[in-house]
């Protein structure tokens, strides 16, 4: 039996034994329902929250509520207006988020933060309307003339450097992708470590290693669990698409994520595989030094610490798009590139040669990790009792 055939057999076992388990099937169903259901729920809540909630308080000009309604109509915005008996009550309502803004005394706008353009425009023109009506009646203008005067002028805004909705979509998608990559790589990496410890703990590892090379066992295990990870991601991706297509999602200004395109999804898949390989072999190596599942905590933090800076770099770069130097350098570091390179690809910042170079670096790293890991594995596989240090395991297995 060739090594390749053995690796395939081992991978198959890892995959099938997990796929068949009830826990896995129910987790998948549960997560899919959660994703689709969550989108429907967001749709329902979102459509109710459509109307702009405004308030008035203090010594408002006469007919202010109607004026706000008329102005809102002119700006094509739905509003709900609440009258507050006192300025204090209005402030409390603003602070608690019941209303977006309150017009006080017809001359002040109360708002938690800088109010939206619509809010300012509607409240200002409504406040003006009361004042103008008084002046008009002093001048003896007819109702019709007054109505014509009160129609607010709609000033068109021309953005010289407009936000490209597609670019926003790309950035959001890049961040979400980075997040998905990070969590799945960590999750399935941990599965690998758990699988390794399990085999050691129930001692089946001695039977297997009497038949298969350490490398075959390690690679087979990583590939089998990785295939499971791909299926899980694909299922969740499919659930998300079903949700996007079916759920009554309101236009909340959320960019259309489906505009990202199939190429980006394929890149994402490739980087998941690369990142998963780097981290799962690391996890397998660390897992081999343990003898009990309970000791998992003592090594699981190492890969987590290693990957975390990549997440921070993505977050920083999202909030200040200018500072990309660190992200660029980091995208060539094999433990970060699976997060940072796809982020750069998605934001359209990476050159093809850069991508290829970082892929080569990652592949070389994986090969080195397999060789290093196999030796540790061999040195530690038959150790029982306490945790074995990497050094002890390395020395125990002479080639």
């Amino acid at each position, binding site marked *: *039996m060739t090594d390749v055939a*053995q690796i395939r*057999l*081992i991978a198959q*076992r890892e995959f099938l*034994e997990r796929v068949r*388990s009830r826990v896995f099937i129910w987790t998948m169903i549960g997560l899919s329902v959660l994703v689709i259901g969550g989108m429907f729920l967001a749709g329902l809540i979102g459509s109710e929250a459509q109307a702009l909630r405004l308030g008035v308080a203090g010594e408002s000009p006469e007919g202010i509520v109607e004026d706000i309604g008329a102005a809102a109509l002119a700006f094509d915005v739905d509003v709900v207006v609440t009258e507050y008996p006192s300025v204090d009550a209005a402030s409390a309502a603003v602070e608690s988020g019941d209303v977006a803004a309150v017009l006080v005394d017809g001359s002040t706008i109360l708002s938690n933060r800088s109010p939206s353009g619509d809010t300012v425009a509607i409240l200002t023109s409504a406040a003006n309307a009361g004042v103008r009506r008084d002046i008009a009646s002093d001048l003896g203008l007819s109702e019709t003339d007054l109505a014509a005067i009160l129609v607010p002028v709609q000033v068109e805004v021309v953005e010289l450097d407009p936000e490209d909705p597609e670019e926003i979509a790309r950035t959001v998608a890049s961040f979400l992708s980075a997040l998905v990559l990070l969590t799945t790589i960590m999750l399935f990496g941990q599965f690998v470590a758990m699988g390794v410890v399990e085999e050691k703990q*129930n*001692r*089946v*590892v*001695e*039977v*297997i*290693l*009497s*038949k*298969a*090379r350490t490398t075959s066992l390690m690679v087979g295990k990583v590939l089998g669990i990785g295939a499971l990870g791909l299926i899980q991601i694909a299922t969740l991706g499919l659930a998300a698409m079903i949700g996007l297509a079916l759920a009554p999602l309101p236009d909340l200004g959320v960019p259309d994520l489906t505009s990202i395109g199939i190429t980006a999804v394929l890149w994402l898949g490739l980087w998941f595989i690369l990142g998963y390989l780097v981290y799962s072999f690391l996890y397998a190596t660390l897992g081999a030094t343990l003898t009990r599942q309970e000791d998992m905590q003592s090594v699981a933090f190492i890969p987590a610490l290693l990957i975390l800076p990549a997440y921070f770099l993505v977050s920083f770069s999202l909030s200040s798009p200018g500072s990309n130097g660190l992200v660029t350098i980091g995208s060539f570091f094999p433990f970060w590139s699976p997060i940072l390179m796809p982020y750069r690809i998605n934001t359209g910042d990476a050159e093809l040669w850069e991508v290829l170079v970082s892929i080569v670096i990652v592949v070389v790293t994986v090969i080195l990790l397999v060789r290093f890991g196999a030796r540790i594995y061999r040195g530690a*596989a*038959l150790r*029982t009792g306490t945790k074995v240090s990497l050094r002890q395991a390395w020395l125990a*297995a*002479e080639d």
Partner: protein
Amino acid sequence: MLEVANISKRFGDVVALRDVSFEVRPGRIMGFLGRNGAGKTTTMRTVFGLVAPDSGSVTYDGAVVDHDVRLAFGYMPEERGLYPRMRVRDQLVYFGRLAGLSKGDAGTSADRWLDAFGLADRSHSKLEDLSHGNQQRVQLAAAIVADPEVLVLDEPFSGLDPIGVESLSEVLRGFAAGGTAILFSSHQLDLVEDVCEDVTIIDQGEIVVQGDLEHIRERAPYRRVEIWVDGRLWEPPVADVRTVEASGRAHHIVAADVDVDEMLSMAQASGSITRFSYEPPSLSDIFQEAVLR
């Protein structure tokens, strides 16, 4: 023929094996004896490449035992272990295929052994749902499912009830009859005596006795004597006599060149003989002579 030649291994300052050599021939069952920590498990692990010896070699039919050669070997480690949540039959098929059987052949063989061990109705149970004894049977089945040419079993009889012991002995004899070379370790000397043709005794990492069991017994420089005079065990007044007590019953070990007639007359002189036996030493006598002296 499996040949272990001049294997030495140190773990730090501890010498685990010193110049260990023996051979297991096709169709023969070799018992591998020694006290705890004598080096039995380490020796067996070197056969499977699980422990790399510092020097020496393991060969099979003249070829160095590597990964490919080992596929024809079956192994049951002392530390039992299979996948607890995997179905019994799937598990056997997996180990059969890992050793190179086709899916179909592995299935046929798995069914055959499950049937032979009375586990046919548990084929689709998870291993962890089986009783301890049945798990042990599955473990044995995993070692033999690929019809190995060499079978290495570390303490296969430990934890078995008398019926289990008998059925395992039968399986071993069957494989030996089919030409398999078998090496197994055990503490149960009477069992080894019953099943094995060859024995190897290891003590503190060194081989102290080795060969055909009948031969060893015949050639031993001492004899087992049990003489009762007037209903009591009588100690022969010869040089170097040793009293051995086994399962509550005592006998003596004397040098092989002691004159039996003379010993008998001395016994007769001291009373009336109620029991007399004089025979080559048992395996237990040999083990004690080799390891405890």
